[in-house]
């Protein structure tokens, strides 16, 4: 009898241990278990939510709903990686979301159609461009309130806060200018005129030319000493000295330049020119154009990988990523991601080995392994993924 009991007990112990282990390992991880700064944050415009992807496994680990009709445009983690700050374009709001709990902590009223923004390095203040009423909202992120709404812009599209947090550069897409604001007072310190629309000879300008294609973004060099502002109409890049806020040089590049993207080592600025499908390579030391690369149409972003040795140029129009060697400026390969895909923006992982690229028309994110240039699809991330950001990214984050 005792032998039977012992045998049964041993049997039960042996059987229950794997089951117990399975229960323990099935316990789901929370976001708190991850390195938040390494996670890929995807903003889905049409499903009004955020998708979080773990780059270690290329899997979706969380979806955070933002509320109906939010149609968020840009989302990024704040400086400590704990909060998501998001422009809720569809609701004229700015959101502060706790990443781990997914709770919306602050809903802040802004001007009309907030899109792009940047924050001070301490995470305290955000400067948000309201595209429909051409104002800039100054947001206290911690307190969750709008401090100021500054007027006098023309579709404020691009924002760059200096590394020391003292000034923010604001580019207007609907005018040929970059404004400089003091981040503490919100005071406009200077307006810099850059480029122009050129000459027009038209009997009916209202029909075709009643808009200005100005400046998408003032891109700072790695040390913040200069800002590079490309003017689409004029086909030039103006180099602004941020110590004096003067334009020190203007370079003629290609047709309809989009914006400058800075390499992680600070050595290069790459500017895609969507009017002639080229990419201008500018040496930031000499401030000269050193190469003109042939790429694709409707280029919406450039990501650097593998320590900055490779540049990935995203062509929305060609559904293709053009990969360039940053030592030789030669074309390494063309990654045809699909057919009729609208490729949006991407983020590079902290170790520089992978790039996560949003593809809006098929609701996917593509993971590009920069070591092998193999591409993997992560499907059903949400409806109309618009952008990806990673806080600790090896290549600067951006939005379009």
């Amino acid at each position, binding site marked *: 009898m005792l032998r039977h009991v012992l045998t049964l007990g041993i049997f039960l112990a042996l059987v229950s241990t794997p089951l117990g282990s399975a229960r323990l390992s099935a316990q789901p991880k929370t976001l708190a278990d991850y390195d938040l700064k390494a996670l890929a944050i995807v903003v889905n*415009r049409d499903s009004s939510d955020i998708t979080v992807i773990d780059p270690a496994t290329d899997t979706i680990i969380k979806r955070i709903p933002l509320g109906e009709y939010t*149609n968020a445009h840009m989302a990024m983690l704040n400086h400590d990686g704990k909060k998501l700050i998001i422009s809720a*374009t569809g609701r004229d709001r700015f959101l502060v979301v706790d990443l781990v709990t997914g709770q919306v902590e602050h809903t802040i009223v802004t001007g009309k*159609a907030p899109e792009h923004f940047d924050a001070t390095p301490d995470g305290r203040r955000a400067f948000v461009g309201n*595209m*429909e009423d*051409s104002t800039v909202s100054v947001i206290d992120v911690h307190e969750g309130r709008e401090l100021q709404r500054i007027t006098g812009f*023309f*579709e404020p*599209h691009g924002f760059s806060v200096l590394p020391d947090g003292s000034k923010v550069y604001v580019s207007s*897409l*609907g*005018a*040929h200018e970059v404004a400089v604001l003091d981040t503490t007072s919100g005071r406009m310190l200077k307006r810099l005129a850059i480029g*122009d*629309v*050129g*000459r*027009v*000879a*038209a*009997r*009916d*300008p*209202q*029909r*075709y*030319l*009643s*808009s*200005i*294609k100005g400046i*998408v973004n003032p891109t700072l060099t790695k040390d913040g000493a200069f800002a590079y502002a490309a003017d*689409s*109409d004029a086909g030039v890049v103006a180099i602004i000295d941020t110590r004096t806020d003067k334009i020190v040089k203007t370079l003629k590049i290609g*047709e*309809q330049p*989009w914006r400058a993207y800075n390499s992680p080592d600070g050595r290069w600025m790459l500017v895609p020119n*969507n*009017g*002639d*499908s080229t990419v201008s390579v500018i040496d930031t030391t000499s401030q000269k154009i050193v190469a003109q690369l042939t790429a694709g149409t*409707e280029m*919406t972003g450039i990501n650097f990988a593998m320590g900055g040795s490779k540049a990935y140029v995203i062509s*929305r129009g060609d559904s293709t990523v053009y990969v360039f060697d940053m030592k030789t400026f030669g074309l390494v390969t063309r990654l045809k991601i699909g057919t009729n895909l609208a490729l949006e923006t991407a983020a590079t992982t902290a170790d520089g080995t992978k790039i996560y690229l949003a593809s809006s028309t098929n609701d996917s994110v593509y993971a590009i392994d920069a070591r092998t240039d193999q591409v993997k699809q992560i499907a059903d991330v949400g409806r109309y993924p618009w952008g990806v950001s990673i806080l600790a990214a090896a290549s600067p984050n951006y939005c*379009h």
Partner: protein
Amino acid sequence: MPAVVRPARPHPVFLGVVLILLGMLVGGCARPPVSDPAKAELLRQIREAYLFDVDVVSLELLSVPEIMARLDPDTHLVEIRRRMSSDFIRGFEPEGSIAAVRALGGGRGYLRLVFFGRRTLEDLRKALSDFTPPLCALTIDLRDNAGGNFDQALRLAELFLPPGAPLALYEGREGRALLYATGTAAPRQERLTLWLNARTASSAELFAGVLRWHHRAELVGAPTTGKRTVQQVVRLDQAHLLFLTTGRFLAPDGSPFGVHGLMPDRAYEGDDVSSLMAPCADTKSLGP
């Protein structure tokens, strides 16, 4: 005893009114501050860039519409169109300046150049590269083309001309400057027919005029509008762009490209593009 009649003293209120009126009169003679930023910008642009001589002081008391009414008819104030669809990225909107591209057989091709936009040169290059085999003759339909980007029109003309060819004389406030073809590529060799009508204007006339001046294209159709001025575009306020006349274009020798618009080499009122030019083997080349 009769009442003492003292001389009347002006009432203080009456005196105050008189003083105010006097002040307004004096103030009106002096230059009032321009409180409207759009008007201030308009006056500044006229002072610094407007092609024609105008007494800016006499404009300062007028409203913006009144000022505009006193400028040349080619200077416009245009309301800004803002497309707020979420289905496009600003700056990537399809332009559509090249349309109806098709092969006509016999080595001939046709396309419609609707206007001169920001990407017209690139779009034209792409359209031409899509023809296989390459063309030997091309009709560019400029009917109803109201013009557009001046520099694009010059760059398009350059495609068909050798490097260094003079294009046009540009006359601005600072004087005249001769503009040259600056491209380095070999010029395209297709025989060109440019189709015009009465609504072909401005940059379209410049494009056609430059090519005809170099005997590089045959013009067919009807006489064009005859608009030769060039405007510079300035953001006036949140809602308006100012297209201000700052120059005009002439042929390289200083003559106008046509006195009252361009006269076609051959009149044509029909609509049959294939009858406009003969198949390639039968026709003499119209090279420079």
